[in-house]
């Protein structure tokens, strides 16, 4: 069970309090109608799925309820950092 630092609660809490939210920094287009089918496919489905540093979203669903971002190594599962939604990619 991962131990995850919530940047809002400023506390490390067990994984069962959190819900994973998929890859981070995939912004929904302001006007999706301008997207081609290929661009829309990429937004919906294409994921980087790296071996190593992964930017991802978590929600402290059984805590403060906030979404935040994290950088985690997908080989060791070790978190490098977590940061608030809206902050620049780390």
């Amino acid at each position, binding site marked *: 069970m991962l131990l995850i630092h919530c940047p809002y609660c400023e506390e490390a809490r067990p994984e069962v309090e959190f819900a994973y939210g998929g890859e981070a920094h995939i912004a929904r287009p302001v006007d999706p109608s301008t997207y081609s089918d290929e661009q*829309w496919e990429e937004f919906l489905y294409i994921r980087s*799925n790296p071996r190593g540093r992964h930017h991802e979203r978590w929600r402290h669903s059984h805590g403060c309820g906030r979404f935040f971002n994290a950088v985690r190594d997908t080989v060791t599962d070790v978190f490098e950092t977590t940061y608030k939604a809206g902050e620049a990619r780390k």
Partner: protein
Amino acid sequence: MKRFSGFNLIGEAFRSHQGWPEHWPDKAPKASYDAIIVGAGGHGLGAAYYLAKKYGITNVAVIEKGWLGGGNTGRNTTIIRSNYLYDESAHLYDHAVKLWDGLSQELNYNIMYSKRGVLMLAHNVHDVQSFKRHIHANRLNGVDNEWLTPEECKAYCPPLDISPRTRHPVLGGALQRRGGTARHDSVAWGYARAASALGVDIIQNCAVTGIRRGADGAIEGVETERGFIASRRVGVSAAGSTSLVMKMAGLDFPLESYPLQALVSEPVKPIFPCVVMSNTVHAYMSQSDKGELVIGAGTDQYTSYSQRGAFHIVEHTLAAICEIFPIFTRMRMLRTWGGIVDVTPDRSPILGKTPVKGLYVNCGWGTGGFKATPGAGDLLAYTMAHDEPHKINAPYNLDRFRNGRLIDEAAAAAVAH
């Protein structure tokens, strides 16, 4: 290849089995091949075998970064079934089930396919509706699947608790009698041995480090830890590592890799005669030939390549098992392990051509790839041999994520109300 038979086994017994040759010779890579398969799991080895056996392409190499069969082939719970809902899925998985039948004889390697029956339990009215839909669709597709009452479920699988005291009482079940299990390692070894005998080179401990494309964009071969190997046809069958290999070819894929755990109990004498699956309770179990209860656990929620999952997944899994089979609380968990499963957005595989000429892919089997092994191998081989997908795997293209023609079995079973 020395033929395997009871007769030869007895013969060899009298000379301490010194006459058995290598299952497959360990080959150094040649400069070029007519076809290369990346990934020596059951699917990749199967593809090599069928390329050589059915499609006449024998100058084939299977390249594996580790040891053959060391990935998800050797880490799954060995369930075989084909009672899928959609026509595309039913045809795909039933193609595999038809090949499973007789595979031991075809490969001259006992892969221990055991048609023990796969019983899927319904626990609420929605499950019943969903399973009936499957059963009727399967019947009209020629795939066996039948409805059992709770009492019939109990008779088929005596450890099952069908009493109303359980949190999710059993309302019935869908039984596919042709479903069952096979010995996972033997499948990889059997294909490797048979492919090798047909001239396929199996090259282990040789990670692919790059994919070379020509000026026209077409595949020219693969860079490996042991040098460049030329081929105009490369099939990637690398499960959890597919995203990484595809990136080498400049392709981003709709895949994510998740940890999936499984576990076995200590071996006991036969107690559990079939495979039982319960999607509502999240329990998947069979008993191996050796006597271990083989139990599938869930995926962790996050992507990972660590082959290691969290303990609360195991807690939930065993709670689910003992909810349906309360006699097993004193059984003991012997071994847990994790695999990396590659999951697509619709949880159906991608099996066919890619935008790169000469590059083919077989991936995205998620938690259910083992059952498809012979079919996936055959269809990847067909696609590589003809540069066109077979009609069975044609729907499993990449285009579906653009045009919206998804094949979403899990969504079809989704609960809402």
